[in-house]
């Protein structure tokens, strides 16, 4: 992503490039979970989940696999890191709510809009933002807000 540099002004809106939520992307997140749990440097895989097995997803009342909500949260977080750097992992808040399922091959765009900028106090500027993911028709899939304190 190439975007505006700090400081950002209220009203500034920034989007990522569109990304398809492919089966592979869903499985990367599925398999990352036991791999991280084992923490032994090797890849581990899970039993079937609603994020990588259509039959299992249908058994749970879904039409097919859907993306783990944390993927869209992470795509928003990645955009925040593009804009604010390590501050996002230092002092921040991010809240996201999954208001629509994300299906295989659906196009997803992460977006942020600066809602306010608090003047620097002790060298720290606080940015409040609306955050969301939308599809290529502009339908909101994930919504929320963020607060990032930048030194």
């Amino acid at each position, binding site marked *: 992503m190439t975007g505006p540099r700090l400081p950002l002004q209220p009203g500034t809106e920034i989007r990522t490039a569109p990304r398809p939520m492919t089966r592979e*992307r869903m499985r990367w997140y599925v398999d990352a979970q036991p791999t*991280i749990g084992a923490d032994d440097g090797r890849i581990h895989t899970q039993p079937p*989940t609603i994020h990588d097995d259509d039959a299992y997803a249908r058994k*749970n009342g879904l039409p097919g696999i859907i993306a783990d909500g944390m993927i869209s949260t992470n795509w928003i977080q990645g955009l925040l*890191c593009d804009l604010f750097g*390590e501050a996002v992992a230092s*002092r921040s808040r*991010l809240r996201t709510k999954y208001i629509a399922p994300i299906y295989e091959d659906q196009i997803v765009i992460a977006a942020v809009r600066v809602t306010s900028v608090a003047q620097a106090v002790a060298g720290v500027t606080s940015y409040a933002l609306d955050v969301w993911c939308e599809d290529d028709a502009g339908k909101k899939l994930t919504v929320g807000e963020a607060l990032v304190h930048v030194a």
Partner: protein
Amino acid sequence: MAVGRYVSDLDTGDVLGPVEYVLSPFVIREYAHANEMHHPFFQGLREGLVMPPTLIHLDKLRLYNHACPAGTGPDARIHYEYDCTMHEPVRVGARLSVGGRVTQRFTKRGRDMMIIEMELHDISNGHLLVSYRDTVLLAYAQKDVAKEAAAS
């Protein structure tokens, strides 16, 4: 208390953990890679790596595995809301303690939902590093509340 079996058994007031671990560079880089966050503070060399805030979500699974060794239960969970506050950066090599509590279990529009509140602390100095509030649907399929009420 409903700990000791399935995640779907958990109920308001249940305490999860604490569980202690050391934050490894493998964990940080693997999680960032899986989520396409190619930032140097997540995917660089060991020195200087920091925990992506969203990694707290896998600490929830760490607590589930610890408190509910029999697994998920009959239905797949669906995540509904993520709410994380970073108070201080969490550096690679840190010795950490994570604990949580089920603060609410309730039914909304025919679905069982659960809220867990968690905290991640630095063992070396006791600092609160991350607070996290997680809301899940315990099953996607809606219950037929009227039918259940009539049957009971």
